[in-house]
């Protein structure tokens, strides 16, 4: 502690030790310089305690809550979508693609130099060629490829954002 003022502020703030507190109390009681300075700082301290706070505008709380409500409402839609829905859509596509792949393979006529394998049980595989013409199938596969690229792009972007 350096100055009288610093000692007295510590005394007023209650931030000095018990020993220091006693010593300063004694000085205030006996030393007129300390007594005068103490009275001066005490009055100043009282003024600071009585200082008034600024009042915000009447609609302040309303404005804050409105801003919060607007922010909540404008949250990106993807943040509100249930992940189970996305998983269900993904599962639908995976199953569809798998089923189409199986049918396509089953309907394809491959020739081999070896003997043809005879399946003991005759399996009835539905011929879906009536349902899927060439252009429709191509269009569907094109859509799947675009969707897969889009999802890959989203995933890579997300990973990049997290990393940065």
């Amino acid at each position, binding site marked *: 502690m350096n100055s009288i003022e610093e000692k007295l*502020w510590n005394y007023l703030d209650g931030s000095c030790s018990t020993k220091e507190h006693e010593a300063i109390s004694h000085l205030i009681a006996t030393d007129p310089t300390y007594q005068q300075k103490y009275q001066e700082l005490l009055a100043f301290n009282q003024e*600071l*305690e009585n*200082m008034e706070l600024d009042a915000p*505008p009447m609609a302040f*709380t309303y404005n804050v809550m409105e801003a919060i409500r607007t922010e909540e409402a404008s949250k990106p839609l993807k943040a509100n979508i249930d992940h189970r829905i996305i998983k269900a859509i993904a599962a639908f596509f995976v199953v569809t693609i798998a089923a189409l792949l199986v049918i396509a393979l089953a309907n394809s006529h491959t020739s081999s130099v070896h003997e043809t394998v005879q399946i003991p049980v005759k399996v009835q595989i539905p011929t879906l060629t009536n349902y899927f013409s060439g252009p429709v199938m191509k269009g569907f596969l094109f859509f799947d490829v675009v969707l897969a690229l889009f999802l890959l792009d989203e995933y890579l972007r997300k990973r990049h954002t997290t990393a940065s």
Partner: protein
Amino acid sequence: MQSKFSDIELIEQTLQGNQTAYADLVKRHQRFVFTLAMRFTKTREDAEEVAQDSFIKAYRSLQNFQGQSKFSTWLYSIVYTTAMTFLRKRKLDTSSIDDENNYLQIENQSGGFKNDLAENKSRSYYVNQAIEQLLPDDAMIITLFYKGEQSLEEIAVTLGIEPNNVKVKLFRARQRLKEKLERNLKHEVSELI
């Protein structure tokens, strides 16, 4: 009307989706937060913007509030950061506020209210006037200590400095405030004579 719930109870209710609880928290702390913002921005419009931003930021990060300190201490640290960012954005040279030239400018501004001199201004008016002339950091420390019910340790958390530094800063801020108050009062008396 102030809510009967504590800050922690209101936070819990807010986290459960009750926005009215957060409105109660805002009502409870708005006056002090606004005053703190005023210490930095010096204008009501900017202070309103800073105070509003602070409450919105606090709402967004409410889940991160651990409850290790008082909610007010946590909130004031958000106000401090928001106000500092605001000042940086505005490129306001805060250090020049204490310059003699600016002091004279502030004096001249108050000179426009000569008609009010006859009015019996309260001491509180002069204290607030002197606080407005302080550096934002000085004004904030004094406000936090006297009106924010914050201990030196809590102010240290808010400002991100050591408690001993807060003690030194508070001492210097009070000295500067006292000087400004004395100078302002002397000026007012000479104007009256």
